[in-house]
């Protein structure tokens, strides 16, 4: 039975309390106040288990570089791509590499001690601070000119239905992991649910008025007054429904029906979620999004590529196992295709009420909890950026010398004009945001 859980979801899906229904997206403050300046956006995309370094990192530095197999789907977007090598997750403390890789990736801070035991190292709990996407979201939501209905949206693809350090990378605060929504229908309901409610309400108003008309003669004079007063409220309500059509500047997307949440549907779910994300940017529902494909140690079986083994299992295979490395390369290339699809969709969508395309105002950053699967290293964490949202100098391959990823997280905030002097563990923030990005 799911009465309670669904109610909680219902309220959560609204993003606001039920009392604010059903006119939420027509509130002038939400619809207009934020239209004046350029709408900057950030998307963090995650795929698990490290990459295959020699099929991933460009050999060259600077503007003249070649995309290797894994990054080859970005060919057409190369001039808008920035590959950062040499950025390391230096956070230590409790938890194994997969746990720290995930929990510290966006938070830049240690995990609390806890009772979750990984493959090695000490058990750990949740991260001890909020993640950079939430930090920037809070920054944007605090200002009426950048505030949006949701602030941020957390998309997922086949994230296991359990809350632990491996399945959560977004934190709204210390010990406060945020659950990604990996069911496109649930995300759709969150985004468009109240529009459907308005339609439903509109569809019953006539019958309701009719009901009042039939009952009024049945009650005596003074009592009828109360019913008439109530009927007037119903008519006012009808007028409000008519005055507020749907509050959307784009047609509501139509989802393919009946996509089940199962391994073999990962490509379909991923595409549907990306489409919803693009739509929600178009509608300015949020400026920040995360896109988490599976989870740290995720074991997607990419049968659609002819790969029967789970991703995590393969990622432990040694470098000399060529067949495994080939499969891992294809798996990572598939992830990169998702990035490319998202970037292309954004590039093909004009910025509503603004200049250029959505991609001109959006930065996507693709990352991973590990540098390399079989060594479990947290050095050289992949960070591949696409899009011009934060005015970084794109079309380059940059190699740093083992710098802490906290500095990159700070750069993201600075890109939004949020001039943090530290983020996460301050020991790794010493030199401020990364040099040479802009």
């Amino acid at each position, binding site marked *: 039975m799911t009465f309670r859980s669904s109610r909680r979801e219902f309220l959560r899906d609204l993003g606001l309390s039920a009392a604010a229904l059903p006119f939420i997206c027509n509130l002038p403050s939400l619809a207009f106040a934020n239209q004046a300046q350029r709408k900057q956006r950030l998307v963090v995309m995650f795929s698990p288990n490290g990459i295959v370094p020699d099929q991933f990192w460009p050999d060259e530095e600077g503007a003249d570089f070649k995309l290797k197999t894994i990054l080859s789907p970005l060919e057409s977007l190369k001039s808008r791509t920035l590959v950062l090598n040499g950025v390391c997750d230096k956070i230590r403390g409790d938890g194994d590499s997969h746990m720290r890789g995930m929990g510290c990736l966006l938070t830049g801070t240690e995990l609390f001690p806890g*009772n979750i035991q990984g493959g090695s190292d000490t058990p750990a709990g949740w991260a001890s601070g909020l993640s950079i996407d939430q930090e920037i979201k809070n920054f944007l939501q605090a200002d009426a000119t950048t505030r949006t209905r949701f602030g941020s949206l957390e998309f997922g693809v086949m994230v296991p239905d359990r809350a632990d350090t491996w399945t959560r990378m977004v934190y709204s605060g210390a010990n406060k992991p945020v659950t990604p929504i990996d069911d496109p229908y649930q995300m759709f309901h969150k985004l468009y649910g109240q529009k459907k409610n308005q339609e439903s309400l509109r569809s019953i108003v006539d019958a*309701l008025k009719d009901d009042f008309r039939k009952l009024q003669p049945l009650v005596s004079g003074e009592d009828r007054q109360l019913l008439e007063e109530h009927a007037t409220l119903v008519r006012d309500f009808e007028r409000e429904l008519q005055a507020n059509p749907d509050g959307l500047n784009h047609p509501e997307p139509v989802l393919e029906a009946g996509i089940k949440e199962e391994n073999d549907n990962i490509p379909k779910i991923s595409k549907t979620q990306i489409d919803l994300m693009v739509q929600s940017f178009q509608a300015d529902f949020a400026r920040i999004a995360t896109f988490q494909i599976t989870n740290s140690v995720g074991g997607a079986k990419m049968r659609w590529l002819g790969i029967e083994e789970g991703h995590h299992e393969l990622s432990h295979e040694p470098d000399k196992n060529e067949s495994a490395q080939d499969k891992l390369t294809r798996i990572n290339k598939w992830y990169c295709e998702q990035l490319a699809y998202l970037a292309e969709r954004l590039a093909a969508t004009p910025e509503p009420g603004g200049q250029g395309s959505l991609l001109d105002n959006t930065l996507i950053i693709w990352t991973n909890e590990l540098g390399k699967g079989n060594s479990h290293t947290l050095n050289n964490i992949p960070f591949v950026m696409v899009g011009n949202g934060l005015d970084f100098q794109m079309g380059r391959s940059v190699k740093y010398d083992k710098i802490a990823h906290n500095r990159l997280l700070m750069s993201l905030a600075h890109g939004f004009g949020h001039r943090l002097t530290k983020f996460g563990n301050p020991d790794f923030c010493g030199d401020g945001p990364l040099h040479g990005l802009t």
Partner: protein
Amino acid sequence: MTALIGRLLCVSLVLAAGSSTLAAERTGEIVYREMCASCHGPQGEGVPTAYPEPLLGDKSVKELALVITKTMPEDKPEKCSPQDSALVAAYIHDAFYSPLAQARIKPARVALSRLTVRQYKESIADLFAELRPSEQPLKERGLRGNYFPSRRTRDKEKIVDRIDPVVQFDFGEGKPVEDDRLKADEFSIHWSGSIFAPETGSYEFVVKTANGMRLWVNENEVPLIDGSVRSGNDVEHRESRLLLGGRYYPIRLELFKSNKAKEKKASIALHWTRPNHTTELIEARYLSPHRSSEVLIVQTPFPADDRSVGYERGTSVSKEWDQATTDAALEVAALLSKEVNRLANTKSDAGDRREKVQNFTLQLAARAFRRPLNAETQAYFSRQFADNADIDTAFQRSVLLMLKSPRFLYREVEDPANDPWNIAARMAFTLWDSLPDKPLRDAAANGQLANREQIRSQAERMAADPRAQAKLSAFFRQWTRMDALVDIAKDSKLYPEFDHDTISDLRTSLEMSLAEVAAEPRATYRDLILEEQLYLNNRLANLYGVELPADALLAKSSEFQKAKLAGEPRVGLVTHPFLMAGLAYTASSSPIHRGVYLSRTMLGRSLKPPPEAISPILEDLHPGLTTRERVTLQTKSEVCQGCHVMINSLGFTLESFDAIGRFRKEEKSKPIDDTGVYITRDGEERPLRGPREMADYLVSSGESRQAFVQQMFHFFVKQPIRAYGAEVPDALGRSFLQNDQQIRMLMIEIATTVAATGTN
């Protein structure tokens, strides 16, 4: 009803005549009778052959005078001078013309009412509770505890199955139970059962443990608290949940200790913070090992109901309320839509799904509307499910219409003729604030609510239902002002022990006494008024100077025992220290607060607000005076004495209880004077000395009995008692007396009277 109006008119005419003989000079009334009454009738009700319309409106006295000067009498306007016009205008304005006067002279009537907030939430809960029956609560208290050797909690792996009265364990580094199959470094425990919420409100659940845990409350799938990832030094988890009073809710708690997680020790305690209480261990009396079903509780906030007449009623609507009904309908529709297959007993791909969901919708509507659907309504809902309509959309929209319809939102709006469905609904709302259940619907359908006897036998059945006890408890809460006295605070220098925990304990103590009366079928009004024993725990016993009997020595501070406070006149719940402390200032008692409570609530006397606002005389100004002397000084003027003769002398009888309700024999080294005099409505003087004589008077007094009957009637029915007949208050009072003042019998009698109005 016409007879009643006639009688009322008579009364007012007699009064009017009486007052006019006293007046020597020319009054507005004399003018009216001379010049106006022949066309407008003696009370402005109109004369069919002359001017048939009643004289009522909203003009001011001045405006009215102007109109009269210019236009009246019709044949000869100059006959009425401006002076006479002014007199007559003032007279008719006050006597019958103005809306205020109309409200005053209007006979009581049963007004069309929408559901109150409590009725709405209870109805929604019961609409769905019937689809998911619960087991009966067990006598045994506590939760079922299953102990497992690992983190897996599959039933076949459990090693110990027992009842744990409370969840409060410190296993240290050892095993939870001495059993060879359990290890000290890894185990899990699974507690399950039901928890009882004594009143409606937000309950905060607090789990204290440094190990992994999860807690579910009224929600079987998603945990209220998920502490399965133990993280950092979080050893206390808190989450709140809204619960309706008087119901059981499913609860489940898991604890796991893992050998990998470097957890040396294991401990856990399950606490809660009830509304207006401090955080405390959840005692066994609130826990039962039986299984109950989830209760659907509407989360949408509603604006509070009008309570200006002393009880909640639904005789007005507002935009906020209408919006709340929309939000709540959407909320409920969304919840039901997710469960529709289970509720309608079908599957997503079943061939007969349309038919099943449609039938379920029709049944649901009939229950929500409290009567079989008429052809039109049935056709409307059926149309939603026409062949090409999306079934889920049709269902959602049907639920929305159902819950927005006046047929659901109003009581007895349909077919005002007194048909069995109205009788059934009236009984259910009176006794439960909710919808008729199946036996009651069956009785209505089978013509078994046709006479008073049949109605009474249903009322007897219904009065034994937990929902009737819950409503009675809610009434007691109002009657003892527990719901109003929420910010009791005392001077911490004078009463250092009287802290928040103590207040919380006092509240628990009174609540337990009242719950006992509500649950006991033969409990009487006397039990409330003469009860000499109080529920006390160690903390209260120490503060109020009681030695609990040795066998009652309690291990834990939160456990309560019934005990008599020896050597003091603690009589009846009126003298309960919670009420005495609540009706007092921070540093001194307040005979005025206590006297007002006794006059209004216990004796049903009406008191006007003070003619002028007067702040209490500061104690410092007269350091030698006792509270009694100070109050006497303060209220000695004529203008105060009109009411304070009664208020003070009633309040003084409770002077032996200080600001925290503790017994005292003297104040400021002077012996307490707890004598008073009550002048009854009949003018009889009753000297009363102290709480004992006060209680004895209350229990024997017709005034007190009538006040109780009337307040209970209004709380249960939410309509003015006289609207059911001028004789109803006395008739109910008589039967109450005949029935040994049994409270449940009164409840049954009230429901029967109200339901049977208009039947034979």
